[in-house]
């Protein structure tokens, strides 16, 4: 199930689709975070960013593994290394280049907050045992990612003039990519009918409230919702950045596909 614009019909197709959406978000996010290794603003934060990146790639790997089992693919690497950018279902925000620490933190915060509510509700909804087990395990780590990024938003927002300027402009630049978080498409509706996904719009207000309160506590302005919103990445229509990211990520594996690399 990875052709553009195809809506899953069976329950299993829906499950695979959901696993890949969650997995792609996490792989691409983890990839960008991993670029910080060795370049963090302080040693302790280098360790922290790597921890989040490891969690993200780890989550992606187990989600993909399950999808591979369902689809009869060889393993998790199939989804990471042998799909093209139009097959990837991650939201666009996560593929944007890392820019600076403020941008990374703002992105991390917006996405962690989204993941927090999504996983919280998925755990109550998903009946598939293996999938639910994963969700519960990953939820613990997501809570920590949210805490870590939220604390940093407060520090950067209410820190120095420079940090405030940087984190404010990060939120401003990222805002047009937040609309996509709550775009509900037919694929999601199909998954919802099988109790494999939840209506993301149902927690949009809670997400907004958390973001708003955090930004206000950080003495930041909440960007205007009434602006152009990017959409389409879940369906394979990405920014230009994803292609470059994948070119880098996949080149070695694709150059020697028959070699053993695990």
């Amino acid at each position, binding site marked *: 199930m990875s052709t553009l614009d195809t809506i899953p019909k069976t329950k299993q197709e829906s499950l695979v689709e959901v696993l890949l959406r969650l997995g792609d978000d996490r792989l691409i996010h983890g990839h960008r975070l991993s670029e910080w290794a060795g370049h963090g603003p*302080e*040693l*302790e*934060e280098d*360790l*922290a960013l790597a*921890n989040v990146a490891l969690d993200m790639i780890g989550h992606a790997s187990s989600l993909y593994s399950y999808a591979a089992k369902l689809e009869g693919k060889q393993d998790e690497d199939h989804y990471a290394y042998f799909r093209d950018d139009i097959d990837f279902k991650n939201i666009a925000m996560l593929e944007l280049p890392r820019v600076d620490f403020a941008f990374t933190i703002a992105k991390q915060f917006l996405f962690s907050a989204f993941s927090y509510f999504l996983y919280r509700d998925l755990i109550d909804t998903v009946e598939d045992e293996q999938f639910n087990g994963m969700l519960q395990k990953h939820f613990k780590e997501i809570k*920590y990612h949210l*805490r*870590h990024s939220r*604390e940093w938003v407060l*520090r950067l927002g209410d820190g120095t003039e420079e940090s405030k300027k940087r984190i404010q402009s990060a939120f401003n630049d990222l805002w047009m990519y937040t609309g996509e978080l709550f775009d509900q498409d037919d694929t999601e509706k199909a998954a919802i009918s099988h109790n494999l996904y939840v209506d993301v719009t149902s927690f949009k207000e809670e997400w907004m409230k958390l973001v708003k309160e955090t930004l206000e506590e950080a003495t930041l302005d909440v960007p205007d919702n009434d602006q152009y919103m990017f959409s389409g990445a879940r369906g394979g229509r990405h920014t230009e950045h994803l292609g470059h990211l994948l070119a880098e990520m996949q080149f070695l594996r694709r150059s020697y596909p028959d070699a053993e690399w695990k």
Partner: protein
Amino acid sequence: MNKKNQKTEWPLWEVFYQPKDGKPFEHAGSVHAPDAEMALQNARDTYARRNEGIAFWVVPSDQIVASTPEDVGPFFDPANDKPYRHPQFYSVPRAVKKRK
């Protein structure tokens, strides 16, 4: 680049971790952090990478009061003449020992 800018050296914290539920806390090492919340998070990110600890204490390093080597005599000697305080002072019947 402004060198030796003391303003931005984060203070040092001593980290103590509890290896398992019910076990006493042990010294793990230290971290730099701007405040207590970040010190806790940094402690977790640094010293629990392999699940070494389930809980942490962080204490500003300058708040630790340590005995000095000169204290060693008067501080710790008194117990030396109270061997009955140490379990090795007591012999255990062979039958009991065996069961361990």
